[in-house]
């Protein structure tokens, strides 16, 4: 190609400078040359300058020029921008990024937009060159996001600029995360997210960086908190209630580790537990998903016999024990695995949904309606979605269809679904599926890939009674009390095939059951204590022999060694408002409490009714007692109450909905109770109990009836913690005994519990301590003490009615409400 002499000369000089660069220039030059000699010379000069400035930067400039020219159809502007990088040291990475993306900037933003894009970047190069590099190396498409345009980029950077000014937060630190936050939550979410990050960064570099990479727990929870959609984490109680209503209780519900990065949120199950994501698109989908997933468990998708048959059908061995992976079933189909998996899920889900329809009226119609309302469908897998929808409509209308007929039979099993899927697969022309996102979008709202987790085959009823899940893993954890029994916070598995073991982590739902059954020690083997401090003996009821065992359980009355005033103060300030409200409510009730005593012999006021009656009777010729006065006076203390708190290990568990442990709520509840009682003026005492074997029942006296409330007692409440097991009967007997010497006519024993009565030496026979507790309650009633149990165990309605009698217990399924509820319950009871 012919060049002007000036250009030739310039080229020659470049060749001397670097042969490699010269070759690159030669190849790009034909595109630059048409813009005229002046522009070309300018460009060549820039090449030389940049090569001289930094070799890498120059080469990047030359290579990027081709595309930059192609898109922008000009040379000078971006050449000038590239030259601007020379004002900063070590700017080659930024320039490299600039040259890689400048073409994209022209394409996506136009000429004016590109200019602004470069300016924004330069501003950051001035502040910190790494931030500039981070900015320029990020593809423009990513910066602009879905919304696109230069305004989106400005919105993205504005928070960073603000935080740079105020907190010296660098764009390089937060850009990647900010883009993801923007994409998930919108631009308005960046500022709160980043300023929180800036705080964290100040406390520690690694912690802060992890936050900004969205890798730390705190940033994830911050994200989940702000994620739009229906928040299942807050609806834990509703979900539980719905399961109870439609399927009859006994489901283990847990939050999964889902995060927005993992794609579409699903509710899943492994046959034992239902895992729900923090957020789902909307309420309708969440509820459908919950019902569908529970349907899987009720319609026996995880039935051992059914799964075994299915594996046999597929020519595979079925593991005798442990969790089962679905993977081998689908791997047989090689490349077509996803495709077959979808077809199988359509069949199996249809079978399950038809079964759900039997329990939940109009379920299929609702599902079909939600599916039709869903606008987005992935082009690749739309046929699957439509087929699933069609199958639902067929089932809802009760039409006969040979493809699905076998699935709608009442006794169909997962193996029938497998057979139907194989048949459907062999004759189907459904498209191949490769993309995971497309795969996810093939599911109707509420449905989810069934093979996401390792399956835990469930035994049929008669087998399951011998084997209770989680029993074996219950070691003697927490025997020595204190805080070490941290329940696994997220006892939950990752994706399938990755960790069979992690799933075997005992659930904290089970841990409330106390390690009693597994302790393996019989009563005889129990430790022998010296007889001197054996405490006070109480009888225990043995239902097997229908008799009392004399001096069987030994209660030691103790003072709580731990006290924690800081915790108390924290709780006091946290619940200050609630306490204020409670006290107000109590005061409002007081006038009726301290009601004027009517029909008194003396007093400050006439009791009009009594006067009339008196006069009338007098006239009738009788001599009535002159009780015609009324007196305002606080009535004699009528009620005495003992609050007896279960202090077993299980109260140390973390709350499933997060926000601390059960014990925090119990401390708060006890504290609020005590403070309200001070306001009410009734006699009260507070105690806690725990046990280890029959001869070691600890009864912690936090406050006696005749003791005045003090900071010492408050601090002890703050120091309450969980240890050991729950021998309820002995504790009730002791509490009943301590009512002796209390004058009040009405005596209430308010028991605060979180699980069933259990101890290490009950030999796995739950009934033993149940029956004993029941007897203890009866004894208490006979002695004029009314036991009333407040529990946070949602399963409690299975055993409490037998122990305390209907109406003598209350299940609080909303643990957070415990602190406020406890005083309210008392006030109700004493009415």
């Amino acid at each position: 190609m012919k060049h002007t002499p000036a250009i030739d000369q310039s080229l020659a000089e470049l060749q001397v400078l670097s042969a490699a660069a010269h070759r690159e220039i030669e190849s790009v030059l034909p595109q630059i040359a048409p813009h005229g000699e002046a522009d070309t010379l300018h460009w060549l000069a820039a090449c030389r300058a940049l090569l001289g400035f930094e070799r890498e930067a120059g080469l990047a400039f030359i290579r990027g020029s081709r595309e930059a020219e192609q898109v922008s159809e000009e040379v000078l502007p971006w050449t000038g921008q590239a030259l601007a990088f020379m004002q900063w040291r070590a700017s080659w990475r930024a320039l490299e990024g600039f040259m890689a993306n400048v073409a994209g900037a022209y394409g996506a933003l136009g000429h004016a937009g590109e200019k602004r894009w470069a300016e924004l970047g330069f501003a950051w190069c001035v502040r910190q060159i790494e931030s500039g590099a981070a900015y320029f190396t990020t593809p423009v498409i990513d910066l602009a996001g879905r919304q696109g345009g230069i305004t989106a980029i400005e919105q993205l950077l504005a928070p960073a600029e603000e935080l740079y000014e105020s907190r010296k937060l660098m764009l390089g630190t937060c850009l990647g995360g900010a883009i993801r936050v923007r994409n998930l939550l919108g631009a308005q979410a960046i500022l709160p997210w980043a300023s929180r990050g800036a705080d964290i960064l100040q406390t520690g570099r690694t912690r802060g960086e992890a936050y900004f990479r969205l890798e730390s727990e705190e940033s994830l929870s911050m994200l989940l908190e702000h994620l739009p959609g229906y928040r299942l984490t807050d609806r834990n109680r509703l979900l539980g209630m719905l399961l109870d209503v439609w399927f009859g209780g006994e489901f283990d519900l847990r939050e999964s580790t889902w995060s927005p990065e993992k794609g579409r949120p699903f509710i899943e199950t492994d046959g034992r537990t239902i895992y729900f994501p923090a957020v789902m698109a909307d309420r309708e989908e969440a509820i459908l998903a919950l019902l569908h997933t529970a349907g899987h468990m009720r319609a026996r998708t995880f039935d051992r016999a059914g799964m075994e048959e299915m594996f046999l059908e597929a020519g595979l061995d079925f593991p005798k024990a442990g969790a089962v992976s679905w993977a081998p079933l689908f791997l047989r189909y090689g490349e077509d695995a996803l495709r077959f998996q979808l077809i199988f899920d359509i069949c199996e889900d249809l079978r399950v949904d038809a079964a759900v329809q039997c329990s939940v009226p109009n379920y299929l119609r609702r599902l079909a309606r939600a599916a039709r309302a869903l606008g987005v469908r992935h082009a690749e897998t739309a046929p699957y979605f439509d087929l699933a929808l069609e199958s639902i409509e067929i089932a809802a209308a009760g039409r006969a269809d040979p493809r699905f007929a076998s699935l709608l039979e009442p006794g169909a099993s997962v193996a029938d679904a497998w057979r139907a899927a194989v048949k459907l697969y062999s004759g189907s022309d459904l498209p191949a599926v490769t993309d995971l996102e497309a795969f996810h979008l093939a599911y109707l709202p509420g449905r989810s890939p069934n093979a996401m987790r390792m399956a835990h085959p469930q035994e049929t009823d008669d087998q399951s009674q011998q084997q209770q899940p989680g029993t074996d893993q219950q070691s003697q954890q927490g025997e020595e009390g204190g805080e070490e029994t941290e329940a696994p916070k997220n006892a939950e598995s990752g994706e399938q095939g990755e960790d069979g073991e992690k799933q075997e982590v005992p659930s904290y739902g089970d841990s409330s059951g106390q390690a009693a059954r597994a302790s393996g020690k019989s009563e005889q083997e129990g430790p022998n204590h010296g007889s001197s401090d054996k405490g006070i003996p109480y009888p225990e009821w043995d239902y097997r022999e229908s008799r009392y065992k004399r001096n069987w359980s030994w209660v030691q009355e103790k003072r709580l060694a731990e006290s924690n005033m800081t915790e108390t103060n924290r709780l006091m300030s946290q619940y200050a408002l609630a306490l204020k409200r409670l006290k107000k409510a109590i005061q409002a009730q007081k006038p009726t409490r301290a009601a004027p005593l009517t029909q008194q012999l003396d007093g400050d006021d006439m009791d009009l009714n009594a006067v009339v009656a008196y006069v009338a009777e007098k006239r009738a010729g009788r001599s009535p007692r002159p009780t015609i006065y009324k007196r305002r006076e606080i009535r004699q203390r009528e009620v005495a109450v003992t609050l007896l708190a279960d202090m077993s290990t299980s109260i140390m568990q973390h709350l499933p909905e997060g926000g601390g442990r059960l014990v925090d709520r119990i401390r708060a509840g006890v504290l609020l109770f005590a403070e309200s009682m001070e306001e009410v003026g009734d006699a009260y005492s507070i105690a806690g109990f725990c046990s280890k074997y029959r001869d070691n029942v600890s009864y912690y006296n936090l406050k006696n009836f005749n003791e005045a409330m003090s900071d010492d007692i408050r601090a002890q409440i703050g120091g309450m913690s969980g240890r050991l097991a729950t021998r309820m009967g002995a504790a009730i007997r002791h509490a009943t005994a301590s009512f002796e010497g209390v004058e009040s006519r009405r005596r209430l024993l308010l028991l605060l519990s979180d699980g069933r009565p259990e101890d290490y030496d009950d030999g796995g026979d739950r009934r033993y301590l149940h029956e004993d507790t029941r007897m203890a309650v009866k004894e208490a009633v006979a002695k004029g003490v009314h036991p009333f149990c407040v529990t946070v165990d949602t399963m409690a309605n299975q055993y409490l009615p037998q122990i305390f009698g209907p109406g003598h217990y209350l299940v609080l399924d909303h643990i957070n409400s415990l602190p406020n509820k406890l005083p309210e319950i008392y006030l109700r009871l004493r009415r």
Partner: protein
Amino acid sequence: MKTAAARQRGVEHDIVQAPQVGEAPPYYQPQGNEVAIFEAAYKRRLPVMLKGPTGCGKTRFLEYMAFQLKRPLVTVSCHEDLTSSDLVGRFLLEGSETVWQDGPLTRAVKAGAICYLDEIVEARTDSTVVIHSLTDHRRKLAIEKKGVEIDAHEDFMLVISYNPGYQTVLKDLKPSTKQRFIAINFDFPSEEVERKVLVNEVPGTKPEIAQQLVAIGRKARLLKDHGLEESTSTRALVYAASMIAAGLDPVSACQVAMVNPITDDLELADALMEIVNAHFA
């Protein structure tokens, strides 16, 4: 309600009033053998205690039995300030004279009526003691103030109702009082009975609406242990059916009759509405 249909409305009438000839019987759908038990108890004039949750038909049952036995029914709703003189009677001043006025219990004892003490646990203990002598073989009412005793009319019968709920833990009846009664346990009727009740109570209720309402009630009662103090009663179902019959759409009718009244807990209401919506989807 039908009982009163034949009577004149808006005028006073005496509390002791036997069912009149030609009056339509109150509607009651027996759930089990309670009618036979009550008849037997009446034959032997034994006092009866009706136990069961609010709104399951205790009062209606008694109205029905009183009608069947052709006895007047005297109902006293007990409250915490109810004293024994409120039941037995008191002296009143009239001009310059004093007049003794019988209380409802005394009148029932004299007239041979069925006396129904509703929610007896609410009453003060002194009033529960006056009934003791009436409930055993003595069948006597002592009027202390007048210094007299009345042998009960041979047709007199005492019935009390008692709802073992958690608000009354401390107000339980004394065992000595309890054991003087024949106790009939009431619960919400079976689905079939409840459907019949709805159709009969609210004329014009379509069978499928009745069926759906009953199914909703059944499911709603499962939530009792989740913080409901009283579960959805048959009465609430009747109200819902009435609202539907009056032209309200079923979902709103259920909301105003069965959800809003029994809970202020938003989540609980949400769960209840979920049940309603599922049935009327």
